[in-house]
């Protein structure tokens, strides 16, 4: 008896099924560490553990399998080493990998009697949910935020699945998701409104309400690069109103910054790498687009259409000379900001523009730049109307007094 005394007595003959089971645990974070310990101690026969992350200082207050000396090492491998010692009868297998990797196919999932989700993001949860349904393996899904937690048992044909209930899109996003690795239209919309718009026309706002900084400390190098990137954009802002302002902005945010991101090869191992946009090429395509395109607000604009809404066309100076109305949002907003600056009395705080989704100039700027970014990252684009619906009504300004 010994080690197995209590579970054996409590579970009776069922205990054998635990010993003979082969289970998969996805995630070795806060829940994952605790769960792995409990599975090992209860005596599950074979445990496979998958996690993509490496250990960070900010994990140590709860992910108790990790110590200071493990920082920067893969979570899955360290967790296996530490937890495995506590029950020699358990077979542990660890993968430092993304659960969405094709090597974890349906056949592989079918090899388990039970899957545990201990993940921190919607996308991976949905993926494992789908795989478990396809492989017909029961899934125990779990998550926490703050002092709340939830557990859901999912079994094909018996219970609802993770996606049966639509999940509320989170209102905040990690900085890196918005600035470096967007994967959904909303990420690009938030980027356009809370980063691009505020950096060019507003008060540079590190604390936009959509930004969740809780993972900053885990990505400090990338955060520092993003800070430099924002500084560089701010320098371009000083040339507002100059004829090549639009080109400078465009080439910075859809060219240079994207090339920098592309060079971070680790980031794109399991994601599609972003493709930079070429200003000259697109402005050629845009020559045929009429500026009345902004009225077309129920269908998603094409790449050149978005370009026209966002930026000056190639023949901008020519048209200006002909007295034609220049209708791109960047120029309209630049003019408004310069106008406000000219009116401001000397010594006053320099005026800024604030985003308001009922203000067409600001809405069109955000819609077009969000869509251009979506194109860069291979994400679906949205109509002006849909983007308006996704945007929060107004900025929260609590704490300003």
């Amino acid at each position, binding site marked *: 008896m010994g080690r197995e005394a209590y579970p054996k007595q409590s579970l009776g003959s069922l205990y054998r099924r635990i010993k003979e089971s082969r289970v998969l645990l996805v995630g070795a974070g806060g829940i994952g560490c605790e769960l792995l310990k409990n599975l090992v101690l209860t005596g599950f026969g074979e445990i496979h553990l998958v996690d993509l992350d490496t250990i960070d*200082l900010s994990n140590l207050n709860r992910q108790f399998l990790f110590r200071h000396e493990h920082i920067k090492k893969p979570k899955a491998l360290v967790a296996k080493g530490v937890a495995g010692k506590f029950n020699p009868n358990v077979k542990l297998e660890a993968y430092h990998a993304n659960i969405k990797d094709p090597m974890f196919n349906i056949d592989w999932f079918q090899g388990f009697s039970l899957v545990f989700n201990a993940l921190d993001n919607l996308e991976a949860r949905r993926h494992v949910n789908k795989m478990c349904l396809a492989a017909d393996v029961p899934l125990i899904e779990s998550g926490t935020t703050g002092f709340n937690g939830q557990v859901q048992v999912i079994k094909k044909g018996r219970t609802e699945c993770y996606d049966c209930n639509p999940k509320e899109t989170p209102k905040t996003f990690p900085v890196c998701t918005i600035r470096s690795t967007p994967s959904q239209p909303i990420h690009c919309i938030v980027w356009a409104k809370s980063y691009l718009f505020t950096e060019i026309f507003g008060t540079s706002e590190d604390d936009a309400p959509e930004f969740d900084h809780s993972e900053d400390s885990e990505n400090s190098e990338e955060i520092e690069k993003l800070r430099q990137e924002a500084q560089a954009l701010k320098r371009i802002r000083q040339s507002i109103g100059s004829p090549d302002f639009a080109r400078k902005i465009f080439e910075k945010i859809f060219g240079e910054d994207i090339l920098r991101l592309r060079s971070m090869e680790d980031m794109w191992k399991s994601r599609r790498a972003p493709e930079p946009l070429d200003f000259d090429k697109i402005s050629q395509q845009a020559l045929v687009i009429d500026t009345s395109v902004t009225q077309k607000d129920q269908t998603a604009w094409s790449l050149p259409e978005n370009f026209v809404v966002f930026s000056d066309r190639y023949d901008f100076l020519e048209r200006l000379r002909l007295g034609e109305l220049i209708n791109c949002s960047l120029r309209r907003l630049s003019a408004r900001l310069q106008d406000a600056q000219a009116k401001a009395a000397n010594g006053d705080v320099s005026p800024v523009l604030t985003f308001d989704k009922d203000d067409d100039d600001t809405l069109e700027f955000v819609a077009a730049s969000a869509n251009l970014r979506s194109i860069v990252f291979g994400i679906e684009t949205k109509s002006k109307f849909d983007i308006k619906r996704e945007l929060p009504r107004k900025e929260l300004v609590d704490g300003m007094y």
Partner: protein
Amino acid sequence: MDDSLEDSPSPPQEPSSKEKKYDRQLRMWGSTGQVALESARVLLIQAGPNAVGIETLKNLVLPGIERYTIVDPSVVTEEDTGVNFFVDGESIGQLKAKVCCQMLQELNPDVDGEYLTEPIESLLRNPSFLLGYSLILVAAPIFSPTLKTIAAYAWEHELPLFYIHSLGFYSYFTVSLPPCFPVIETHPDQSVAAELRLTNPWPELAALAKEVTAGLEEMNDHDHGHVPYVLLLLHYLELWKQDNEGRVPATYREKLEFRKLVEAGARTENAEGGEENYEEAAAAVLKSLNPATLTWSIREIFQATECVELTTDSPIFWFVAAAVKDFERKHHVLPLHGSVPDMKAKTADYIRLQKVYKAKARQDAAEVLANMRVIKGELGCTSEEIYERVVDDFCREAAFVRFFRGQRLPVACGGEDGEFELAGEAVEHEPTSGEGQALEDPESLMPLYITLLAYDVFINSRSRNAPPHSPDSGPTTLLNHAPGHASSTVHTDEQELSRIAHSILFRCTRSGGGDLHNISALTGGMVAQEAIKVITRQYVPADNTVVFDGIRSKVWVFRRTADMFSRP
């Protein structure tokens, strides 16, 4: 705000490594909570192979208490290795307290750990050693007389005490809080609307409403659709008062009528067919126009003896409570919270509204502070300490400040004949309706709780002089006695309880009286969470007993009173 490069503010200070390590939890209880945690000294008293105490401690060491002490005279057995994560095959035969202490230490180098292998009974010959701790955890099994001694001492010296028992698929714990335990930062649910004082606006707010809503009918559509709803409501309330002898809508019917008045003001001949600010105003009518009534929690505080009979030695909490009470008596409202919900508005208007609320909140807090000076003066307090922070915190959430009347931990004991008996006042009483209901309610875990208590009693009565825990507990004896114990103490249908108790005890005895790691881990998590609330004095602690049924996956919290289950 100027954001030109020349004047850009210096980059924020790089967070310290400690801030990084504790980043997540600092979001929950802030730096004041962390400071409290980092000066907490926790004592764990345990014996026998049971993981729940160590699991609790693990969850307190990780977030960084100051120090822990493990009292455990036992040595590691093979059974331990199956339930306790912090011992392995190599540690069999070694002192368990020592092994666990070292392992826990490795989890967080910021925390000091020590262990004592003397039995708790002999340590209690000098019970003042308990005074070195800010919180005591006792994990069953333990001798009832020993637990009684600890309970009495902890109660007398106002030390929070947790008694925890994890058994097979079940567990429960009881918290003994000090006689008076106030919590200012209860972190109320954000969905609870902050009081906006719409029915009794102060002059600055009324003036702002008047100014912004001036010429409302003639405004262009954009302006009309951007008047903040708070100011719209104030405007329509003025109109209402003119037709209703100066009264605000009070009854449900009046509020519905008032809502119609508001809705009628909205412009509908636009693309959206309505106005968002008007929709917000109409939606707020029923919940934001209630006359200021005191919450039961603050009423309880105002009526407490400690608040009514202040002395120079009263804790600061009661001085602030008394000062808030004076404020309320004068103004018939609690100090203003000061925050304004998000709403459709032009940014400039919204900021002005925020300013008016914030300024009033500051003014109210200043008045409370002044009240406190007066009270202190009247009592002849010489200390000049005023604790503005406490006043600010109290005023911010005054409606949600709580205080708890703790009680001495009730201890179930076995009498000479194995009868069931409770320490403390054996008051004769009829079962309260609450107890009766709890027993009849199939959703309550009362039968489980009683059975677990009976188990405690049985184990204790069976072996007075031997350690109360040994694997050969005679299941038959237990099954024959415990339901009788249980039913006799709660004056209920013995047969029904017997049936329930039988199945529960079958499982308990089948587990050999031992715990399961996963149940102990879960219970340890819950206990640690409650301990953190007690240590940081934030959030609302469980008052006072939590029962867990791992078979039905249910948690049940109830307040166990001292005379509950006493024999008639």
